[in-house]
């Protein structure tokens, strides 16, 4: 098995967590610990010599391909969570639900003065709000509330930490700017 180094490289590329020498050894069957270790050392030296975008790290008892720390600012730009883009109307609706929950649609529409079926559907799809149940009054209207995702999106520990509606509005605008 001359290409043990290449096989190990392909394994390292696919794995989510650090690969231990024993794990690699078990996959490759033939080669022993020493050969695996040598191949890993060679790979590491190769990555160091070529000084590309990644390196081999020995971490948590195993080996892992990681990006070079000097490029972390670029990577942050890549994996930045997709900024939430909500229209003003959607933000208002969301704010009403957040502050007045549990709340039924007619109450939301009463506050906003406009129909908001489409917005509710969009907020549900984005998992920012959820259906809590139905109110036991004539027509059994749906009761809405915010979700855990809502808290995470707005970086809130819990609902008590809710900023004022004005603050939410600026948050939305900031995300909008980051998008460009």
């Amino acid at each position, binding site marked *: 098995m001359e290409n043990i180094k290449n096989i190990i490289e392909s394994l390292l590329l696919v794995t989510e967590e650090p690969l231990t020498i024993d794990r690699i050894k078990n996959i490759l069957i033939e080669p022993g610990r020493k050969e695996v270790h040598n191949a890993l050392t060679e790979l590491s030296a190769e990555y160091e010599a070529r000084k590309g975008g990644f390196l081999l790290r020995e971490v948590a008892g195993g080996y892992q391909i990681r*990006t070079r720390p000097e490029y*972390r600012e670029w990577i942050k730009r890549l994996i930045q969570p997709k900024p939430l883009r909500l229209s003003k109307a959607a933000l208002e609706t969301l704010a009403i639900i957040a502050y007045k929950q549990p709340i039924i649609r007619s109450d939301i529409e009463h506050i906003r003065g406009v129909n908001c079926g489409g917005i509710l559907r969009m907020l549900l799809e984005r998992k920012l709000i959820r259906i809590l149940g139905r109110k036991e009054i004539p027509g059994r209207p749906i009761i809405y509330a915010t979700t855990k995702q809502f808290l995470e999106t707005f970086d809130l520990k819990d609902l008590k930490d809710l900023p004022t509606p004005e603050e939410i509005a600026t948050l939305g605008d900031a995300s909008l700017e980051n998008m460009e």
Partner: protein
Amino acid sequence: MQADIYNVQIDDIFEGPMDLLLHLIKKHEVDIYDIPIALITKQYLEYIEWMKIMNIDIAGDFIVMASTLTKIKSRMLLPSHEEEDEDPRLELVKPIEEYLRMKSAAEKLAARTLLGEDTFVRNPRLEDHLMDHEAEIIPVGLFELIDAFQKILENISPHERVNITADTISVRDKIVQIVEIFETRGSTTFNELFPKDAEQSEVIVTFLAILEMVKLSLVRIIQNTRTGIIRLFYL
């Protein structure tokens, strides 16, 4: 009763009428542009008859094709009045051509280097790439953890605090539960492990379970300095 034994799904034999038709054409090595319609129709009907005898559930699609074949056959028998009359078999040839083209396309697709079959992509744990020298995220010490825990205890309503039931969850069971959360999601926030309506005893067991998992190096705990959110990662 005994017939039930032979109740075969039609898919096992021929995917559909087109496949049966192609099977017959191939069997007799005939040109699809010059199909001996009488022969093929006869055999097609025999197959359907055989399927019926074998108690095979025949889909309506097979019957539709049978009637198409019969119709073409009878039109072939009629004397053609004009030279430019279209060959009735064209009604069959065009769909067969199209079907063969699509079959060939399907084969070509299947022969490609398939993702998840022949080739694989990286499945990165994003936090690993950000963790290195990450200033904003600090490993959490025991004191921070206890602070957070105290906050959670404060949030438990007094009503819940006195309501301690007999069937409390043991620390070991709790570890299993937490591991299950990790296995589906990889990480969780500290607060998520403590539901708002949890009883005090369960909160304590959860906390003990987390401490035990830290001791066993099962989890890594980090805190975002900006938001204060404590996150647990499964190692």
